[in-house]
């Protein structure tokens, strides 16, 4: 079983907000337009979209970290 998490590099992020449009299920925007993720594992059906959001980020601020979990 693999779990995936979204990691946002806050230094790189410039609040374009494309990620929240692509993936509203996992990414919301704060009042200044910066993405908020809750840090919980991503639902498996969202992993592909999250990877697309990472590719489409103009600042390359998103990493989707896949990790094999023992559970």
């Amino acid at each position: 079983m693999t779990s995936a998490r979204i990691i946002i590099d806050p230094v790189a992020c410039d609040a374009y907000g494309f990620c929240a449009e692509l993936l509203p299920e996992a990414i919301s925007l704060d009042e200044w337009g910066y993405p908020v993720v809750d840090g919980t594992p991503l639902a498996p059906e969202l992993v592909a979209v999250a990877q697309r959001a990472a590719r489409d980020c103009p600042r390359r601020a998103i990493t989707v970290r896949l990790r094999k979990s023992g559970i």
Partner: protein
Amino acid sequence: MSSPGDTLPATARYRLLGHPSDLAAHLAALGPLPLPHGGQMHSWRQSFVAALEASGLTGRGGAGFPSAIKLNVARASGPRGTVLVNAMESEPASDKDKILLIRSPHLVLDGAQLVAAASGARRVIVCVPEGRDQIAAAVTAAIGERTRARYPVATSEEVMRPPDRFIAGEESALVSWVETGRSLPSFRPDKGIPLQVGRRAAVVHNAETLAHVSMIARIGPDAFRAHGLQEDPGTSLITVGGSVEQPGVVEVDRGTPLIEIANRASPVGRPQALLVGGYGGAWVHPDHFGTPYASLSLRSIGATAGVGVVVVLGSDACGLSETARVVHYLAGQSAGQCGPCVYGLPAIADDMTRVARGQVDSELMARLERRLREVNGRGACRHPDGAVNIARSAVQVFGADLRAHAHGAPCAHWNRPTQLRFPTARRTA
């Protein structure tokens, strides 16, 4: 004598404060620096790390990370690295590292040498902020004294002068400054990957932590553990200030009740609250004044040991106004890299100002709560988290004031001069 921790003079009493300043007296008190001699590096290292592990020493710079683990990470990342002595002490309410370096520089330098020897580092750099010339002069004089006396050291010692900014002392910002000349924290989702200077491992230790290292290596972990608690041993240097008659730095056993620490500085009247852990720390209500100064106990009341600071808030002050000042100060000290910090801290500071002035309504409180929740943990470094901590604790500890303000009772103290310390424009001491 070459293996650290194997001798414990019966008379040795574990104290950092009061340790001698000059090299001869330092050596008379503690004996020679126990560095490895040729061929015995491996066994020396093992016993040094074992002594540190047995001591249970944790970092005294704020994060409280176990020192032995930090050493092992640096060791595992290869030789020829750099040991950075963090004497930036950017916390405005703290003086402990300054006092330690001015009074007992050899204690700190020896700790850095031991860590350098154990990790195979080739450079020791003491980082003292621009403008704090008294500290830099003390350290430079001590290095000169060691050179003239042909004091045996593992590697060279030098002083560097980063800018005097709050964020410059954050460990990744310190490494960044040495490497690039810019004090910028880096985003490190995996803290297990060591920082680097010149593509070699760089390990950053707080000045006080290194003073403990050099004591533990010489008089043994048991002398350290004779103080404090089983799960949080040793002593800590704490700067006590605020509404007190005798502000200053004290050395206390870990586990000492907060109010006893405050009492060492003779508070003016009965304290209204204590600020523990510095400006990114937390206010503590009188109900919890008996809480032991130890990581776990402090965590249970929403505080942290943080940097060693206890500020006494007198009864004639407004804790909410003081908090607004602190959060405004912290907002102004952001490195300016991360949106949640750049926009979030000024917004939280403005909310706190409204709270202090009694411009409170349910909308404001809901907005503040949301901002505190959302900004927390979203910077590359923990700078915004500190601002959130103090604001959150203020809302709880001064809740009665807050409700009174909300019902239109103005605060009698909101426009009084602050009881806290803030750097004036730029430090030039």
